[in-house]
């Protein structure tokens, strides 16, 4: 069996010294000056220890030194190096190089160690071509691809390699704008999806399993939305796999991460900006089809800022919102309400209260919304 391993040795470096992230070489230098000590290598080693039962059957393909070689050797694995660093300090480009090379050489699973930034780099390099598991070591970890602890990451990897887990899911890759975050503003964005082993309860741990498969439930939800569509109404389809299923049900190709517009079963525009959406809205009635993101529960203001206050107001406010979520997704909120953060407090107030969330072909939930 072949295991790909990529460790971002500087992941998490900024966290302990209050830098809220470690994106970019300047921040790494600043963090080091502030006395930060790398923790990612130790965390990667903890995950690898959980894989030790497979020591004899496993070949670890990785990058030199602290990017993987050192920890894999320390755990007694056979190691094959697939490249070398561009400079002295490991960077985002090195992560991407390594991931691309692993994809080219072929591995059964890619285990990586880092935070949201690392997940984005992996996603940029391999998309959904490889099955991955994230060892949590970053400051920001909004992405669903991380296991809750290094040990759990190793265990999930082992179970997947041994064939105990076969099903995979598409797990969200999220990140926030670090500069804004340092100013105290949170703007999380959905960057895409990585393929991860499907674990009962979710990779992140305390989540909920959906009986048949999340995909099937998404299709059921989409069937309901399509059946309820009215002629002449413009439907703005927000980002996410649940809303994407609506496009698929109509046989349309839109964008996974953008806002697409459809009318009478036809795609009117893809990946629209706020301005483009507003120009469409002058022409008649509209609905915005949205889905909460990750475990945070935002239906507006995270990853779909194109659906701005002006857009929502022009479409008709709360009545124009069509909210979709699988029961599994709702359960990840652990009873917390859905959130709106449009940037317009008056609109947020209007949208608060209760809203119907479509959770199946013949099922909806009346759920709390707050801001």
């Amino acid at each position: 069996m072949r295991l790909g391993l990529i460790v971002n040795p500087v992941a998490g470096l900024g966290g302990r010294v209050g830098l809220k992230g470690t994106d970019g070489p300047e921040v790494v230098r600043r963090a080091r000056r502030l006395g930060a000590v790398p923790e990612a290598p130790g965390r990667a080693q903890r995950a690898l220890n959980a894989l030790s039962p497979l020591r004899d059957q496993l070949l670890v393909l990785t990058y030199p030194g602290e990017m993987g070689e050192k920890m894999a050797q320390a755990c007694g694995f056979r190691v094959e190096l697939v490249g070398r660093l561009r400079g002295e300090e490991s960077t985002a480009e090195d992560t991407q190089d390594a991931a691309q090379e692993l994809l080219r050489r072929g591995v059964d699973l890619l285990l990586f160690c880092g935070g949201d930034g690392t997940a984005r780099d992996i996603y940029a390099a391999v998309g959904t071509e490889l099955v991955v598991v994230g060892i949590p070591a970053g400051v920001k970890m909004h992405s669903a691809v991380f296991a809750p602890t290094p040990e759990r990451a190793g265990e999930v990897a082992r179970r997947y390699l041994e064939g105990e887990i076969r099903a995979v899911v598409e797990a969200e890759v999220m990140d926030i704008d670090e500069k804004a975050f340092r100013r105290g503003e949170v703007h999380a964005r959905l960057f895409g999806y990585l393929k991860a082993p499907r674990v009962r309860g979710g990779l992140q741990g305390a989540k909920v399993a959906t009986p048949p498969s999340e995909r099937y439930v998404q299709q059921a939800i989409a069937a309901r939305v399509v059946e309820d569509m009215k002629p002449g109404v413009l439907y703005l389809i927000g980002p996410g796999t649940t809303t994407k299923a609506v496009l698929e049900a109509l046989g349309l190709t839109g964008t996974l991460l953008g806002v697409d517009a459809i009318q009478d079963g036809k795609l009117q525009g893809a990946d629209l900006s706020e301005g483009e959406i507003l120009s469409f809205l002058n022409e008649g009635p509209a609905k915005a089809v949205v889905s909460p993101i990750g475990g945070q529960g935002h239906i507006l203001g995270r990853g779909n800022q194109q659906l701005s206050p002006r857009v929502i107001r022009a479409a008709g406010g709360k009545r124009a919102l069509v909210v979709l979520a699988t029961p599994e997704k709702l359960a990840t909120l652990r009873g917390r309400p859905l959130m709106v953060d449009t940037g317009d407090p008056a609109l947020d107030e209007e949208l608060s209260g209760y809203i119907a969330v479509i959770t199946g072909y013949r099922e909806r939930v009346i759920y709390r919304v707050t801001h």
Partner: protein
Amino acid sequence: MKGKLRRFHQARWDEPIIFQLSRPGERGLLVPEVEEGIRGEVGDVLSRIPPELRREDPPALPEMAQPRVYQHYLRLSQENLGRDLNVDVGQGTCTMKYNPPVNERFVSSPKLADLHPLQDEDTVQGILEIMHKLDLLLREISGMDRFTFQPGGGSHAIYTMACMVRAYFAEREEAERRDEIITTLFSHPSDAAAPRVKGYKVIMIYPDEEGFPDIEALKEAVSERTAALFITNPEDTGLFNPRVREFTEIVHQAGGLCCYDQANANGILGITRAKEAGFDMCFFNLHKTFASPHGCGGPGAGALGVTAELVPFLPVPLISCDEKTKRYFLDWDVPNTIGKVKDFYGVIPAVVRAYAWIMTLGAEGLREVAKVAVLNNNYLMREILRRVRGVRAPFHLERHRLEQVRYSWEELARDTGISTTDIQRRVADFGAHYWTSHEPWVVPEPMTLEPTESYSKEELDEYIAILEHIAREAYEDPETVKSAPHRSTVGKMADHSYFDDPRKWAMTWRAYLRKYTGYFQPRETGEGG
């Protein structure tokens, strides 16, 4: 000493499927040849059966001698768990109580067992009388005005209620408009599923911060499209919704009906009634609350009761009594009936056992059942929360529960990586049973325990000791828990993805052969299979 751990090992027979035991030509009973005289008189009897009724191929049944069949099933029974053998408090929501074996004497008596469901009414007055009298008893217990015993279980009763809701609004010419059913997240999943099968849309009410169904969400949910409310109370959390009367009022004001899933009424028997809570219908699972065995998923009985206004919609026939002649009869005179929902009378042995159980206990006894069940549950909860590491009872930490509790091992899972399904397998090593929760798992790493009234303090202590021991193992020796079971007849499933793929399901031997021959061969191919 509190709660002694048992040195247990389950019998393990490595017993094949009965079809694999089949040997061609082997017989359990040799039917004698027809005697010459008779043959001369009637000729070849088989040729008189019309061709369209004749099988061309013999049925694909196992061919076996009697002793081997007997041995086979006795072995399987030793590989089983249940109330008669173990502390069966781990199957929360199912009300696994003591089913007095004396009641089996009534149901296996030839007086009942030899009856035919098509016998003339005059020759089955006894059983009709029992059904009528159980109807009267359940009316008293629930406050409803009439019961039917046709539904064969809880979900069937919920489906029957949905049929009656549809019929009720069809009669008022509102059936098309009223196409929505409201239920709650911690009601039984069938309260959503069965109406959906009937074509209803379902609106789900989630719990508020305290764990009760969110009444403000209910107010948002009702409309002129509301057909009915389908809920349990107490819910699966063991919390009794004290505002249930307001719930039924809100739904009634919107013109909807209120249907009460009382499959499990063990915590409220003789204490609260469906009528006073404002419900129009309710049902009891006789195989839960009223001490009839579950029979591994059947045969059971969902005794369904309704208020006078809804009697005209009940399934036919009802059992009525002619006041003058005191004669019982099958009453087909139900003007707006939804028709029959089950063949013949329903599952009569469950009716007889429930009747016997109620008559043994009397009104005071029934109330005591509820009180002891609630006491047992609260003792169990207090001791578990005190003594067992890593477990919590989400929602309302300070409150008592009714008959059951849905616990969460989230903390233990986070600390140790041991999940509730690991614990489930490990519990089997101590000769006990354990259940998690319905899907989806809203409570993370769930465990649902329901001790009922029929366990002693010693037995509850034993179960607590098992959990205490396993939780300690999870922290100190997690491998033992992960690799469990070690002393049971069941095994650890390596790949759960089979559950997701209907192409891999094999509910029958025939399906197994069709789907798996050539994939992995059965141990031994039965020629008769």
